[in-house]
């Protein structure tokens, strides 16, 4: 093409007029069309966002025409499919927050220590093997984790509860689901935090070692604070993943909305509720159909709040080198 363009140019200079099928304007046109198509592809991602927000808001508006917003926020029961329907979102939000908290209590400490070990202790060869292996752990489909939670982790917890604490643990509960979710997000925390820690300049470490610090002191008192911005980003991602995780809780957390903060109890999360309704046959436009969009919008807003908080935290703690 470039050759043709050049010769056309020569021809134009020689003859003083346009000739040939592949003129400069044609080449330019092709370029323009290509650029326009690529731009369209990039803009389509914005259209998707508009679509998501539009659908959630549109259906939620219909929902709130039937259900007063005050009831939605203050009632303590969520039974939208019953004849005596109650529309308080609190039980679902509680279930979501409790499972998320259990997952984070496992994933944040373990992920941080693993990332520190990988970044500060592990020999290069070990790190090059372990990191991809951890990524495999995050590639396991969530429905498989759900199976794992229901049929291996919870029975194990039940056994421990009855033998050690003589406590009768329900066959599905938020503790088991949350722990498996925690295992699922450890790789995210570990991998992203390790990236952040490794990008801390080497001379900071050398400074610490020169002062006689051990590797552990360097890791906790120099590298960790210096990488806190990136590490926070990893924690925020972990929170988003845990809030939006669906299959593990739908399978293993029990499916009855319960307003409780006790992780040993079964409860339902926002995501599990959406799955439960979708499995049944809800008429388009019915209140049950609209309620999953209202629940979805709530989930979206919760995710958004944590992301915005994370954004400000990161800006507050950002260290520049």
């Amino acid at each position: 093409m470039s050759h043709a363009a050049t010769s056309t140019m020569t021809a134009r200079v020689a003859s003083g007029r346009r000739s040939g099928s592949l003129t400069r304007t044609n080449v330019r046109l092709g370029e323009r069309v290509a650029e326009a198509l690529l731009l369209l592809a990039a803009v389509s991602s914005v259209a998707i966002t508009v679509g998501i927000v539009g659908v959630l808001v549109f259906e939620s508006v219909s929902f709130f025409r039937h259900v007063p917003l005050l009831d939605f926020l203050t009632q303590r029961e969520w039974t939208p499919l019953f004849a005596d329907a109650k529309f308080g979102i609190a039980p679902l939000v509680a279930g979501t927050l409790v499972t998320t908290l259990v997952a984070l209590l496992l994933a944040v400490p373990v992920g941080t220590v693993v990332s520190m070990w990988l970044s500060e202790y592990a020999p290069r060869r070990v790190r090059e093997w372990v990191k991809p292996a951890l990524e495999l752990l995050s590639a396991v489909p969530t429905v498989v984790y759900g199976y794992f939670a229901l049929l291996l982790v919870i029975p194990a917890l039940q056994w421990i509860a009855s033998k050690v604490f003589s406590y009768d643990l329900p066959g599905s509960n938020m503790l088991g689901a949350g722990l498996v979710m925690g295992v699922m997000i450890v790789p995210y925390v570990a991998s992203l935090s390790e990236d952040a820690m490794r990008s801390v300049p080497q001379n900071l470490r050398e400074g610490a070692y020169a002062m006689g610090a051990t590797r552990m002191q360097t890791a906790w008192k120099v590298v960790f604070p210096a990488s806190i911005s990136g590490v926070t980003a990893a924690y925020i991602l972990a929170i988003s993943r845990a809030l939006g995780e669906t299959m593990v809780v739908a399978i293993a957390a029990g499916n009855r909305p319960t307003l409780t903060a006790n992780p040993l109890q079964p409860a339902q999360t926002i995501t599990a509720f959406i799955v439960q309704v979708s499995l049944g046959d809800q008429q388009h436009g019915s209140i049950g159909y609209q309620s999953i969009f209202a629940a979805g919008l709530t989930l979206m807003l919760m995710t958004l709040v944590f992301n915005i908080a994370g954004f400000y935290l990161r800006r507050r703690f950002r260290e520049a080198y």
Partner: protein
Amino acid sequence: MTGPTQATMDLVARRRRADGLFACAGAVLVVLCLGVLVLLVGDLVRDASARLHWSFLTNYPSRKPEQAGILSPFVGTLLVMLVTGCTAIPLGIAAGTYLEEYARKNWLTNIIEINIANLAGVPSIIWGLMALGLFIYGFEKWFGDPGDEVFGLGRSILTAGLTLGLLVLPIVIVATRESIRAIPQGIREASFACGASRLETVRHHVLPYSLPGVLTGCIIAMSRAIGETAPLVTIGALSYVAFLPPVPGSVVKDIDGNVMGHAGLFDWLHSGFTVLPIQMFNWVSRPDTRFQANAAAAGLVLLTVTLLMNGVAIVLRNRMRRNIQW
């Protein structure tokens, strides 16, 4: 000056001990994490052992657990992935190329970039709600008569593939951008110096050189899409499918066996479907525990495919790092 005091030496010894303990703790945690992966696979293999047989792959799901197989979910997964790939890969590469090679620094580019970062964090079930409200009911409401299913995409393979394609789009875009960014500016300048236009530079140099990275991203994206369950539950994937989508050109019969005509080239897109993770979910949540072996076997098939795809991606990435030196 005298030597270090006893107190200092104690302090050093204590710090060293703490350091050693921490190193051990880190190593133990890493081993435990990897141990979970082994435990998971081991558990599935143990539970599935009774069902691991070729007939499991060639049978339809059934009410009898010992005869149930995954033929229709497996075919469903393949076809949905075909649509997903056809959506996410061209769109993602095009968008990534635009943002790296064409986009000027302006408000539109800013919006697109922030938007893609945010899309990657949207919970997967929300994508299902989007598809349900837009692809299934929204299109129908805006473009067609109410109740007439012509304009809505229905609960079909097409809807499922599009939904998952859009869901993994950010992964493909980010991978494309990263591998394009790794190409030195000199390559582009050399191409321009030879008289190539921007499009020619992209087609002949930028894209070919970034191909391994882009390919890795695509494989990761597809492996993510294969395991997605929640959005497909939301759009109403069937949980019991005892038929395969129509093969183009095959004879279509009605319930009484009368020939209705031949299936068109794209009829399979509108067919109802199920996929492997949905089938597994269905089997896990049945009260009849005999189906758990089937769930485990389906999970094992799913896990094998995902881990293989990720393994290929990792090997590809490592080879790329080793081979390319600018």
